[in-house]
């Protein structure tokens, strides 16, 4: 292959992730949503329990949870009269997704360095 022009021949990441309605990285781009994810990493919680620990209103927590759910990061279940939320995708899957992003940047920076330094071979 002579795809030297733009460099990337393939960048494949074949995870066993199901299609998501929204991008989990975008979903994590908000500090309140990251705070919710961190709270849920300690165990299942209801909307009220989450709202008690964050400086935002209960409706705001509900909105963030809906986005996190659409991104495949949390799921909910009924527990009596409450609805409990927990993390969905495993930490392993999330780490794999994160690494995909990192490798893209790594590859680009590596090429720049390798192509602009005297050949050491």
């Amino acid at each position: 292959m002579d795809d030297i022009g733009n460099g990337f021949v393939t960048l494949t990441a074949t995870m066993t992730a199901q299609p998501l309605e929204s991008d989990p990285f975008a979903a994590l781009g908000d500090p309140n949503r990251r705070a919710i994810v961190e709270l849920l990493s300690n165990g299942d919680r209801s909307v009220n329990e989450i709202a008690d620990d964050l400086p935002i209103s209960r409706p705001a927590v509900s909105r963030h949870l809906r986005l996190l759910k659409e991104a495949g990061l949390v799921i909910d279940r009924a527990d009596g009269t409450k609805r409990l939320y927990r993390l969905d995708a495993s930490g392993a899957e999330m780490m794999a997704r994160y690494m995909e992003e990192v490798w893209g940047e790594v590859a680009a920076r590596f090429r720049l360095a390798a192509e602009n330094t005297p050949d050491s071979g």
Partner: protein
Amino acid sequence: MMEPIVVEFDVRASQEHAFDVWTSRASMWWPRSHTITEGPDLTVVFEPFAGGRIYERGSEGSEHEWGEVVIWEPPARVGYLWHLFVDRSEATEITVTFTETDNGSRVRLVQTGFEKLGAEVGTERRRRTSNAWLELTALYREVI
């Protein structure tokens, strides 16, 4: 079972040079956002032998382990265990191969072993998965 991450690309540099830049000159290009100290003067060290350490040395002299070299076959292949930001017991495995092409070389990186993150059952799994999440959100905070 999670499938490996595969990243493959061409570079206008010889196989030898590509291998050398990837390993002994990683300080030049490794993204600062994906390091422990994030300092402008940090050094990334690949000890050039199987069993060698891979670590970051901060400008203030502190050392932070990133992994361990398991395959050292210049200029064709380098393999290592990688546990930057996670516990050593949760290291993933990375193999990078360098092959010659007509006008440079091709780099192929394969990363496997993600299932180790949170592979245990019960409480231990819960704890580890939680840790991975916390690390991930911490990482994310750093890269944006």
